[in-house]
């Protein structure tokens, strides 16, 4: 039993390294060589911290609101593909952003909603480890948010 335990710890360590690599938690990014796409909020996406990303995007802070509903799994089946959906019961929503504070870059996605777009969006995100996920909805120029915890466990076998 003792040596089996040692073996499984070793497996876990390697799996961790593999997962960290897959999710981009070690190594250093080479700077983007081409120009960024028009309108892409570069400095917000390059901020490591949630506060800096929000400051860069909006220049103000949010308040938590039950008018924003954020749906995320309790335990992610794979940190590389976590379904996230946001629905707001708020008027004049002009943007929705989704932040994953424990990721190397806190801002994962930012959506601009022109007139006519319903205040909702669903996408799939990578999460490096167990983390909070925050959805920020801009309504009538104010920021409302909802936050959930997502457990990211080590997989690697795939069932």
């Amino acid at each position, binding site marked *: 039993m003792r040596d089996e335990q040692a073996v499984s710890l070793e497996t876990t360590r390697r799996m961790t390294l593999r997962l960290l*690599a*897959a*999710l*981009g*938690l*070690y*190594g*250093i*990014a*080479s700077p*983007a*060589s*081409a*120009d*960024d*796409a*028009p*309108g*892409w*909020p570069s400095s917000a*996406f390059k901020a490591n911290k949630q506060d800096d990303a929000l400051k860069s995007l909006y220049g103000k802070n949010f308040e938590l609101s039950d008018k924003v509903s954020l749906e995320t799994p309790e335990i992610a089946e794979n940190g*590389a*593909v*976590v379904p996230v*959906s946001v629905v707001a019961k708020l008027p004049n929503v002009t943007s929705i952003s989704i932040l*994953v504070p424990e*990721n*190397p*870059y806190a*801002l*994962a*996605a*930012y*959506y*601009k*909603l*022109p*007139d*006519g*777009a*319903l205040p*909702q*969006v*669903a*996408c*799939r*995100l*990578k*999460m490096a480890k167990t983390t909070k996920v925050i959805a920020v909805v801009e309504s009538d120029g104010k920021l409302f948010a909802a936050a959930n915890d997502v457990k990211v466990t080590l997989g690697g076998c795939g069932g």
Partner: protein
Amino acid sequence: MPTIRMKAAANGDVVEVQALVQHPMDSGFVKDSAGNIISAHHIETLVFECNGKPVFSAFWGPAVSKDPYLKFAFKGAAKGDSISATWIDNFGKTDTGTAKIA
């Protein structure tokens, strides 16, 4: 092969759109088997237009999953209208796909 697959369905005056894009969405931190870092390669913008007007715009960083998926809904279009999606990535590559609203 086209890189964008889209389904758009009208339900009353609301059109629900789902899109799947084939893209590696490399984070820029991962090393290949030889130990070299794979450069960040991800979609930065994905813009949807219908009847000549933007209806939804996505701005993405490298934390969006490989082969990204997006679902949204909008008002102001009808069955039979054509909707287009255009992505641009950080390498300057781009592609456009279209679908008819069903």
